[in-house]
């Protein structure tokens, strides 16, 4: 080991539709800049689509995944064990018979998107291990990844959103006329979404009643909860990456550029990212295709959106980093909370750079936030001396 360097485990991949996106986030936007700081030793942990965990320096190489050699690697490589020793230690069997390789982890950097990772599950494991980790905690992650919960939480903090409703998928066959009635209180067009998934999968824009039931069924097919939202007129979509713990720091308000299609589907969001031709004036290509940074809206509206973003970040209890998506009615100038993403793809580093935070700077700060949060958590007394056992 190189003296004085901290060891950071970056966890990525996972049992999610955004498995591949997670690999890119981890390798390009986290591991690379972490290593460039020359202050951290990075241990990559890859979770396969089947949920197997692997730990190997080779996993830092993008070619491994692009060439498909990862299959071969997984057949041979030993899986990793996690050892909780009031902290986290990685364990795997090495080539020498019986010998085991150990690596104590100082900080964990989760790079997971979507289910089983970004939604708080992984954070629960890390909390149990009592190891500092980057990004939102268990509760904030779980709330953020559930669009119903995040709306309920922000709404109770007085943050506006477009009219919406929700139902349990299991209720759809049994009480479908009630649900239809409830949903039709909203004005068309409406958006029907599975409550959890991160990407656009299973989302339908519905213009009229005849397509509504099919859309509800599709969303219900993907998730146990379905959220239905009323479309916003004169829509300006904006998104704001934020980082920090007690004093959140916003990046620049970003305005994704909508295409001829009314709506992003999975392909335009992720698959075609790089094929959209040359850059147009002021446009920056991010994880979501092209966007304007900063958003091209009046100053007071801009400030309003930034404030609403920070309020939402605090209301949900985010720490480390998150990205808030907001909807603006360009005419009424109303800003509405839409959803919150606890681990934005590629950390939204393209935006942070425009805001004056380099990639190297960003990951260093996030690690510092993680340590700071962990330290302040240690101060909160959780152990009380009791004589309960003796009395028993």
């Amino acid at each position, binding site marked *: 080991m190189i003296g004085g360097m901290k060891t950071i485990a970056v966890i990525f991949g996972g049992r999610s539709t955004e498995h591949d996106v997670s690999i890119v986030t981890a390798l390009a936007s986290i591991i690379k800049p972490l290593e460039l700081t020359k202050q951290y030793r990075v241990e990559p942990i890859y979770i396969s689509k089947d949920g197997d965990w692997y730990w190997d320096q080779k996993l830092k190489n993008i070619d491994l995944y692009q060439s498909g050699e990862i*299959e*071969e690697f997984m*057949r041979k490589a030993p899986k990793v064990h996690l050892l909780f020793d009031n902290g986290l230690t990685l364990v795997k069997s090495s080539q020498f018979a019986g010998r085991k390789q150990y690596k104590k982890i100082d900080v964990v950097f989760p790079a997971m998107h979507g289910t089983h990772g970004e939604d708080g599950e992984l954070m629960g494991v890390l909390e149990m291990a009592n190891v500092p980790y980057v990004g939102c905690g268990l509760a904030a992650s779980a709330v953020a990844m559930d669009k119903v919960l995040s709306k309920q939480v922000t709404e109770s903090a007085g943050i506006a959103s477009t009219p919406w409703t929700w139902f349990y998928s299991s209720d759809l066959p049994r009480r479908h006329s009630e649900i239809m009635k409830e949903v039709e209180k909203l004005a068309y067009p409406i958006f029907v979404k599975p409550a959890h998934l991160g990407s656009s999968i*299973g989302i*339908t824009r519905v213009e009229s009643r*005849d397509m509504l039931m*099919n859309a509800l*069924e*599709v969303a*219900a*097919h*993907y998730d146990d909860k379905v959220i239905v939202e009323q479309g916003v007129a004169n829509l300006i979509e904006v998104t704001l990456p934020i980082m920090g713990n007690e004093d959140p720091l916003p990046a620049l308000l970003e305005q994704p550029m909508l295409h001829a299609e009314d709506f992003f589907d999975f392909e335009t969001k992720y698959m075609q990212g790089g094929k959209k031709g040359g850059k147009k004036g002021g446009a920056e290509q991010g994880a979501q295709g092209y966007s304007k940074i900063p958003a091209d809206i009046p100053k007071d509206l801009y400030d309003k959106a930034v404030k609403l973003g920070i309020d939402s970040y605090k209301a949900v209890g985010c720490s480390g980093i998150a990205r808030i998506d907001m909807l603006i009615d360009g005419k009424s100038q109303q800003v509405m909370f839409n959803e919150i993403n606890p681990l934005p793809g590629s950390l939204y580093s393209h935006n942070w750079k425009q805001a004056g935070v380099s990639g190297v700077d960003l990951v260093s700060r996030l690690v510092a936030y993680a340590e700071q949060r962990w330290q302040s958590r240690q101060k909160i007394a959780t152990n009380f001396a009791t004589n309960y056992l003796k009395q028993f």
Partner: protein
Amino acid sequence: MQIVVDSLLIDYSKIGSGKNTIVLLHGWGDSRQTFEFLEKELVNTYTVISLDLPGFGKSQAPDTAWDLADYASIVSKFLQKLNIREVYALVGHSNGGALAIFASGTGVINPDKLVLIAASGIRNRQKGKRLAIKLVAKTGKVATFWLPKNQKQKLRKRLHGSIGSDMFVAPHLQETYKKTVRHDVQAEASKITKPTLLIYGENDKATPPIYGEIYHNLIHDSVLEIIGGTGHFVHKDKPAQTLKLIEDFLR
């Protein structure tokens, strides 16, 4: 677009606003993208519905092994769910053609017209070839058991590919494939009374023009067109020519 039919998520597109509806059925291991060109052209006159059959493209795979009857049934339910009561024409390529024959012959779907492009569904013709595949598969299993799993897969893929087996195109559907392979639809074809256009490629090895002749004899009101210089994917090799034949036939 997506829709849930019988708890299966089906990816489809429905475009155009013509009075008459055309439904496109792709072949084994293929997806609705295969009809991209036809779809784009036919939409000027018709409402065109094209779906990824369960297990292909972006549609969810069924949990159990399906046969043609299951596929015919899901297509029928899918159309019901979309409120399509009348199908003007059913267009099928390869296995989608066999499916179209089965669905029309058994009355599960009642189109006014049928277009069969390199339709399969004639199974006793290629006994010799099937025997060869079987033999290679069996000896292959013995000869390759010592190889690592991925190498074995690769080798088998190559072998099956070389003698024209589609089995590995959609590996998760191996049982379903075996079931459809066994299904001969000549009996169903003989029950078809609607006008039928048969298009085959001159150099098609998978479904040779002789299949067209067999169906031509079985289906009373049918026309057979054999397009020169093309193989199994007639509609992709000669898109304009195929389109012209279909448009004239449907007019």
